[in-house]
């Protein structure tokens, strides 16, 4: 049984359907990517999990039990549209949100100190939020999300607006939380970060799940049977086994070949090895970015418009 299960969730608004029967299973302790273009329904799904919105149909279970309002204390949520009370002091702000999630005051204060220390923000505890730089405010937002050490963390576009240094620190912290047993649901457009941190993904488009599975599986499913071959020789095409792909000699010295359908990698390599002096070869898997674009484009016309 998965930790977070979404079963056939439907959400309709006046005039359009935001989610048309979405299901997904998030295993405990994994980093799960929820992907999709703008307007696919990611934010709606996340708000339903957070019980900000109610689903019209379907269920959400957490740890095997149907979610109730009390379960929101088990979730830490960093929304895409996020901010802070500008006039509040940093320490008070973190403690307030921690207590709102059900922490006792001493617990919240202790946890606040620990996190401020970890992010080098200790001297800012009694400063007003408005005096902080944008980067520091983002760190405070992150602390507010994790202050109550929730078993389920939901990040909606966590890296948007972060500079590369802070984004890296955030990534390290997210992975550290996963290692401590937290389950992380991660919604983003940033495919590079998906490849780095996610084990599982679900791709939403037009209110429906169009792709789901582990990152490795998905890549295998979408591979184009392309091999990068390293050789000093010039390879001639062999239509029975493979075709040559155009390459840019300035960027890569590899020769890219695409296997003909039904041809096994080892047969092609054996043949190449016989005829040329190979120094190495790698199977080229598509990037998540390519898979994303390909899947979204291919489902664009097949799904009926829900307007």
């Amino acid at each position: 049984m998965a930790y977070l299960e979404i079963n056939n969730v439907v959400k309709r608004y006046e005039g359009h359907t935001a989610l048309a029967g979405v299901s997904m299973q998030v295993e405990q302790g994994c980093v799960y990517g929820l992907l999709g273009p703008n307007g696919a329904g990611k934010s709606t799904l996340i708000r339903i999990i957070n019980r900000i919105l109610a689903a019209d149909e379907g269920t959400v279970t957490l740890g095997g039990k149907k979610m109730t309002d009390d379960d929101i204390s088990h979730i830490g949520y960093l929304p895409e549209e996020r901010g802070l009370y500008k006039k509040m002091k940093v320490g008070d702000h973190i403690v307030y949100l921690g207590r709102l999630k059900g922490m006792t005051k001493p617990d919240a204060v202790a946890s606040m100190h620990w996190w401020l220390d970890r992010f080098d923000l200790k001297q800012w505890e009694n400063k007003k939020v408005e005096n902080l730089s944008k980067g520091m405010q983002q760190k405070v937002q992150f602390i507010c999300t994790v202050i109550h050490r929730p078993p389920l963390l939901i990040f909606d576009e966590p890296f948007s607006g972060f500079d590369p240094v802070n984004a890296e620190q955030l990534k390290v912290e997210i992975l550290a939380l996963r290692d401590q047993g937290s389950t992380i649901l991660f919604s983003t457009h940033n495919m590079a970060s998906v490849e780095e941190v996610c084990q599982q993904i679900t791709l939403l488009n037009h209110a429906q799940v169009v792709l789901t599975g582990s990152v490795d599986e998905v890549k295998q499913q979408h591979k184009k049977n392309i091999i990068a071959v390293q050789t000093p020789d010039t390879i001639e095409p062999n239509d029975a086994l493979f075709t040559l792909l155009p390459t840019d000699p300035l960027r890569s010295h590899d020769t890219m070949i695409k296997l003909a359908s039904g041809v096994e990698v080892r047969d092609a390599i054996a043949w190449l090895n016989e005829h040329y002096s190979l120094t190495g070869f790698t199977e080229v898997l598509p990037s998540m970015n390519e898979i994303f674009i390909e899947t979204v484009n291919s489902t664009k016309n097949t799904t009926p418009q829900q307007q």
Partner: protein
Amino acid sequence: MNKLRLIIAREYMSIVGRKSFIFMTLGMPLLFILICAVPVLLAYLNDKGSDTQQIAVIDETGRYAAALHSDDMYSFVALRGDTVTDAREFYDKSNGSIDAVVIIPRDVDSTGVVNIYSEGTITPALVSTLRGALTDTIEAAHLTAMGIPDIQQMIEKAHVNVDVRTIKWSEAGDEQASSTEAAMGLGLMLSLITYMFVLMYGAMIMNSVIEEKTNRIVEVVVSSCRPFQLMLGKIIGVGLVGLTQMAIWIILLAIVGTVAGGAMGLTSAPAPSPEAIAKVQDLGAMQAIMQQVMSINYVPIVLNFILYFIGGYLLYSSLFAGLGSAVDQPSDSSQFTTPVILIMIIAFYAGMACMENPSGPMAVWCSIIPFTSPVVMMIRLPFGVPIWQLLLSLGLLFGTALAITWIAARIYRRGILHYGKKASFADLFKWMK
């Protein structure tokens, strides 16, 4: 419940801790004192600044000039001569040391006309001083001339001021002296308090809602509590801020009142000057007013005031919260607040109109309709209101207030997450469903 308490506490502290709150709380009474004090101060400076005016008096009758007493402002100098030409000559020769010339003509007893001449301005104050002094003296002279003994005392005896007292029959049959003035004053005060409170703090709630939205903090908060809790927390928190502010004002008023009263008591103590005597007479009037004020039955009024105050505040503040959730920026809020403020202004004028006839059909209807009842009923209440009207009005007010809170909560839930396109009233109706 615990979350609601946290939200209330944060909302309360976030406003009370602000500099603008402290400024406002202390500044408002100062501003009020200033508004009251400035005209008095200006009048004082006006009197103080001018020199004593020299007024020449030509009394053709030879009997009335003595009635004009010189004081700080005017110095009257009797002048021989008996024509306007003499007066003119004298005025020109004085080279400006005489400000005006008064001529009391020989036939003043029959015509009652006195002339005053000057090249400069003749102030209304001088005219009224002359009128007052001469009228009294000439009138007294006429009475004496009639030759009836003790006529002054007879006139004083005959003089009467009719005092109309209103006495209310209760249903039990006993009589109770009541006063329309005191009742009206009290009603007006309570209605003004409700009105001001709802407008000021309703707008504060709206700003607080919009601020959370523009800050983009609201989604984090509603992922930790229900939107309804957040809205209710705001309404209660801001309400407590309002009560705090009013309490501070009342304490300040009490301090100022005590200090001012003490100071007045000290200055009037030494000698029984004419002013002190006048004050004793004022005290008599004060006592009468106090008696009237005491005669009002306060328990039901205060009890009802609290109920209407809570009901009215809940009704309007949730309306403001719901509407505030639909806008992104304070500058966009006017399209939604205008109708609400219009209703409030109507309520206020209806209340004013009801003072004329507190049991008329308009007063009755406006005190039953929930949107106007908190203001109008306060005006009617001291005059006595049939119990069925009171119960109907309160029932409708609380029923509507709860319904509006519920509707506002639904709008709020959707509105706080709505960004971008400006919401219209049509959108609000959709969100209500």
